[in-house]
């Protein structure tokens, strides 16, 4: 309760701590906390929070953290000093003051309380009263009672008693006129007790009657039935005396059904028995005599066994043995078992469990094929369901199905029997169409192959190509049987081809078609079973390096043929030999045991090891493997893209008619990186700048891109004759490159960059240039240059071809172009700076004229070509 509320209540004059104020009317929810925290709110307090306090509210039992024994000396013996003995004080002086010591003096509070309690007399058993007792009267409201008590006479006697008394009745006498002595005696006799003596005098007097004995009905405080006395046997209740009970058997020892109670089993402490026993049986010493014993026993037994003894007095088996007690001999003879003679084992028969096995081996297939035949006619769901039920069940099912209709019930509309009921008419028709088509197909097949022929037909199970492919890489289950393994793989190959191929395996000689079918089915099964793990799981496992081909396990019961095994044993040793293993065994290491494979180290790894990335070499020399070099990023990748495609180099014809044949000799792996290699280090110098496309992709804006596209589009129309055109241009390039160095010396390499632009392009561009704004102009030029020079991207081929065409039409023009191209080539080789102002082209043209001379002398060219060009030529091709 808030303090505000408290104040308010105080203002109203309500004691906030009173129980009425604190009464909770909350039926739902949590009541407000009580106004004042009472000592015991009844809420749960954990054990460690509970406090022990004595009756005066002092805290007892201090914990270690609240002071322990030292806190509050009432935890000690009640003194600050604890058990420290007080100094001796003589009581001699005030002995007189000292009263007699009473026990109470030595008692503490608890003892005193106990004593007080024991003195209090409490009548705990309050008598039951029906309104007459003081307590009951007291309970009634006082006023009325007081009046009634004052008015009414004292309640000592009842009215009847008072009247009787007035008539002379005394307590203890019967009611009625006095009777004579004789009458009284008769009364006594009726009551059941005989009058003891006869007195002459007594006859002379009249006597009051005997008091009528009060009928005392005992209170029934148990749950037994009326008239039942607990512990009374059935016979007793009927009034019969109980049969002689058996001897009391001492408790604790079980007695078997057939055992008689022996003396040892009897309860020695049973007094009643003892007396009875003593009557019947003599003391042990006296029973020495066998006769006596038997007599006694027989007598005793005879009493107990009377009933059964009647039915079978002297039953014995035929051999004279007495029938056990409690059993009777049967009158009916025992029904004899029927025995059948064993069949004769034919001579020469040997147990062969496999026979049965083999006989039933094809049962599955038969069943399957039969099933297929049966399935030919499609059935409704209900038919199918019914076919699964036995005849009896069918009847019952039909009963339940038709019961409703027999009774005339309309079927519940909300319970369609199948999905088909829910389908639209259109869908149903479509389904029906499909079904008829299917059945037609099946029927066709079925009819073409009559049941007998069906068995001889090879039935190739369907395995999904992906499964088959996976299984090819997975575990090979038939490694123990190479023939089977090969057939298995053949099957998988067939299956992975998705039915395109032809199954390359046929029935083995002496193999039945059924067996072959079974074999194929087996393959299909194992393909699905043994396909390898996929995904993350597979990466956790490695297939074993050595496939252990264990002994072939024969299915079913099998008696191993020891003689055959002995013959087979040496075989596997010969077979197992892997050529490598054989080499190892012989100690011939070397070519046999060595495998060399190209390996692509990560570029970073090479960097860290301080080793040149071998990728470039790989790419050039072992062309097929280089292409798949997977993850060489950065420069490696660049080199890869720059690397010349092998085809143009290998193209024989143009080299044959060309001039720079010697120069074009393919690079020899042995020469790479060695002194003889003129190209050494060249590619690293020349290959630095990545393709322009990359720059474009990164830096060029969208509209620039669109501009860039235009020229290439213009060039695009003539892509038709690349193969023939390339060589010629290459030749030209060769000559140009051979002359390259000279050119270099004359032109300032840093500033000059020749560009090649096909004429058409240039002209068209000129027009465009005029149209376009100046700001774009610059870009434009660059783009043009890009197209023409840096044709390492796809553009070049096209360019060249278009050029070629032009050449055909205008030779003169073509000549110029050639020169230009050649010039460009040389530059491309040696120069890194690619971009020059366009006007420089004029200079180039001049240069080109000089360069033409080497073209005329092929021999010279070839000589010179050795120095620079092959690489350069390649590059040219590369740019294509």
């Amino acid at each position, binding site marked *: 309760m808030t303090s505000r509320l408290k104040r308010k209540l105080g203002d109203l004059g309500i004691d906030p701590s009173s129980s009425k104020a604190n009464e909770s009317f909350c039926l739902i929810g949590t009541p407000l906390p009580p106004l004042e925290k009472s000592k015991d709110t009844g809420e749960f307090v954990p054990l460690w929070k509970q406090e022990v306090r004595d009756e005066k509210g002092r805290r007892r039992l201090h914990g270690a953290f609240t002071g322990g024994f030292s806190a509050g000396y009432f935890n000690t013996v009640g003194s600050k000093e604890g058990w420290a003995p007080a100094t001796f004080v003589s009581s001699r002086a005030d002995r007189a003051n000292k009263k007699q010591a009473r026990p109470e003096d030595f008692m503490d509070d608890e003892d005193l309380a106990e004593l007080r309690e024991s003195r209090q007399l409490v009548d705990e058993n309050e008598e039951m009263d029906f309104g007459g007792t003081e307590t009951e009267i007291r309970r009634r409201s006082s006023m009325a009672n007081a009046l009634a008590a004052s008015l009414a006479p004292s309640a000592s006697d009842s009215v009847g008693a008072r009247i009787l008394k007035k008539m002379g009745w005394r307590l203890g006498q019967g009611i009625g006129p006095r009777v004579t002595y004789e009458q009284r005696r008769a009364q006594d006799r009726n009551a059941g007790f005989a009058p003891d003596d006869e007195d002459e005098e007594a006859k002379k007097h009249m006597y009051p009657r005997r008091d009528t004995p009060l009928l005392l009905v005992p209170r029934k405080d148990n749950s037994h039935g009326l008239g039942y006395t607990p512990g009374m046997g059935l016979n007793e209740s009927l009034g019969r005396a109980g049969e002689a009970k058996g001897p009391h058997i001492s408790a604790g020892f079980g007695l078997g059904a057939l055992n008689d109670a022996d003396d040892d089993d009897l309860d020695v402490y049973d007094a009643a028995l003892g007396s009875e026993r003593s009557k019947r049986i003599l003391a042990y010493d006296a029973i020495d005599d066998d006769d006596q014993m038997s007599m006694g026993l027989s007598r005793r037994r005879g009493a107990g066994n009377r009933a059964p003894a009647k039915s079978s007095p002297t039953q014995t088996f035929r051999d004279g043995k007495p029938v056990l007690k409690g059993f009777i001999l049967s009158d009916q003879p025992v029904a004899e078992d029927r025995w059948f003679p064993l069949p004769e084992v034919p001579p020469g028969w040997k147990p062969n469990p496999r026979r049965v096995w083999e006989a039933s081996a094809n049962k599955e297939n038969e069943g399957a094929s039969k099933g297929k035949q049966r399935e030919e006619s499609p059935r409704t769901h209900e038919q199918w369901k019914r076919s699964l039920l036995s005849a009896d069940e069918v009847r019952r099912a039909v009963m339940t199905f038709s019961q409703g209709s027999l009774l005339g019930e309309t079927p519940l509309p909300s319970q369609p029997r199948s999905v088909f009921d829910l389908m639209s008419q259109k869908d149903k028709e479509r389904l029906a169409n499909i079904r008829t088509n299917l059945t037609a197909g099946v029927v066709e097949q079925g009819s073409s192959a009559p049941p007998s022929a069906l068995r001889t037909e090879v039935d190739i199970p369907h395995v999904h190509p992906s499964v088959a492919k996976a299984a090819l890489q997975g575990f090979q289950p038939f490694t123990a049987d190479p023939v089977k393994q090969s057939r298995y793989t053949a099957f998988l190959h067939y299956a992975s081809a998705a039915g395109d191929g032809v199954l390359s395996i046929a029935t083995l000689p002496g193999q039945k078609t059924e067996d072959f079918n079974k074999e194929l089915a087996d393959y299909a099964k194992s393909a699905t079973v043994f396909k390898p793990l996929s995904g993350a799981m597979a990466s956790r496992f490695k297939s074993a*390096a050595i496939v252990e081909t264990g002994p072939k396990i024969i299915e079913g019961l099998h008696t191993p043929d020891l003689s055959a095994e002995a013959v087979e044993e040496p075989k596997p040793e010969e077979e197992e030999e892997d050529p490598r293993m054989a080499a190892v065994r012989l100690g011939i290491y070397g070519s046999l045991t060595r495998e060399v494979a190209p390996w692509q180290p990560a570029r970073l790894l090479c960097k860290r090891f301080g080793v040149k990335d071998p990728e470039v070499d790989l790419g050039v020399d072992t062309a097929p493997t280089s292409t798949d070099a997977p993850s060489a990023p950065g420069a490696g990748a660049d080199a890869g893209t720059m690397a010349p495609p092998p085809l143009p180099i290998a193209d024989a014809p143009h080299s044959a008619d060309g001039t720079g044949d010697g120069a074009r000799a393919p690079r020899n792996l042995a020469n790479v990186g060695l002194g003889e290699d003129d190209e050494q280090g060249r590619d690293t110098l020349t290959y630095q700048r990545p393709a322009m496309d990359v720059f474009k992709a990164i830096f060029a804006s969208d509209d620039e891109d669109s501009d860039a596209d235009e020229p290439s589009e213009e060039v695009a129309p003539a892509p038709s004759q690349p193969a023939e055109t390339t060589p010629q241009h290459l030749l030209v390039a060769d000559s140009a490159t051979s002359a390259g160095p000279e050119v270099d010396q004359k032109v300032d390499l840093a500033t000059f960059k020749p560009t090649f632009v096909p004429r058409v392009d240039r002209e068209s561009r000129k027009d465009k240039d005029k149209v376009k704004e100046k700001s774009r102009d610059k870009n434009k030029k660059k783009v043009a240059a890009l197209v023409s020079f840096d044709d390492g991207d796809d553009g070049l081929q096209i360019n060249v071809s278009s050029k070629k065409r032009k050449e055909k039409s205008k030779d003169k023009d073509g000549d110029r172009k050639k020169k230009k191209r050649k010039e460009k080539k040389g530059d491309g080789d040696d120069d890194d700076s690619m971009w020059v102002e366009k006007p420089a082209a004029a200079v180039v043209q001049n240069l080109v004229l000089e360069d033409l001379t080497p073209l005329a002398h092929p021999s010279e060219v070839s000589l010179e070509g050795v120095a620079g060009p092959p690489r350069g030529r390649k590059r040219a091709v590369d740019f294509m």
Partner: protein
Amino acid sequence: MATSTHNPTALARNLHTTLSNHKGPVHVARYAKGSAKYVLSGGQDRTVRLWNPSTGAEIKVYAAHGYEVLSLTVSHDNNRFASSGGDRSVFLWDVSTGQTIRRIAGHMGKINAVEFNDDTSVLASGSYDSTVRLWDLRAQNRQPIQILEEARDAVQALHISHGTILTGSVDGHVRAYDLRMGQLRSDFIGAPVTAVTSAQDGQSYLVTTLDSNVRLMDAATGKMLNGFKGHKAEGYRCRSCFGHGEASVICGDESGTIWAWDLLDAVPLPPTPPPKVHQGVVLWVEHHPTEDGEMISAGADGTVKVWRH
């Protein structure tokens, strides 16, 4: 027993000190780089210990591994070392502070071998998961630079020299990944390979296999140059190494002896058979990289023994 004659090929067989603080088998014991004044040993008791072999004093205990330590490698500047073992990650330690600098996780099995390259920029680790992973120590990249997955079984041994990574695997192959050539040369040895050591010049390498053989193979052709037999190594990783000046071959033995052969004629050096020096299997032998007369051996009896002439 000891030959005090200073035959250069004779093995140092006088016990100098015993380093015996390990509480279980010592799987690996390696000399520091440079003048190799110290020895690092790692054992089954999950600790790596740094010793001074000349005094026999234990200098430091490196305890962070949760499983056994199977392999150690020391950086070229002796500032760091790497250890690996059952806890599937490589621990990179700072020698002086005794703290792990990096814990490189990624393998899926216990790591049998770790090796630095020459300038400690790359760490190679070969594992039970049959891969060798190459980790970049210059960058804090959690991914390996490259994973060599050619091995078909657990990788047991690694050796890096001359731009070539040699791996020995239980599948019986020694694979040489040649970075310069971009080539993988795998030599089939036959039996599971437990140790591979390359010669100084990289022209040959020493292979220890579980068929009780040590073979000296020609790195270029894969031919066997010499075979060393006599010892017993059938179930444990008993490492072999070259003796001083690569004039001899030393290998531990499962019966607790240390064998030595002449490199050229493959004849066991006397005494034959060698005396038993360890109570258990000799799991590691390593000759002092520079000094003639010193080598160490570690055994399953929990001791590392320093031998001198």
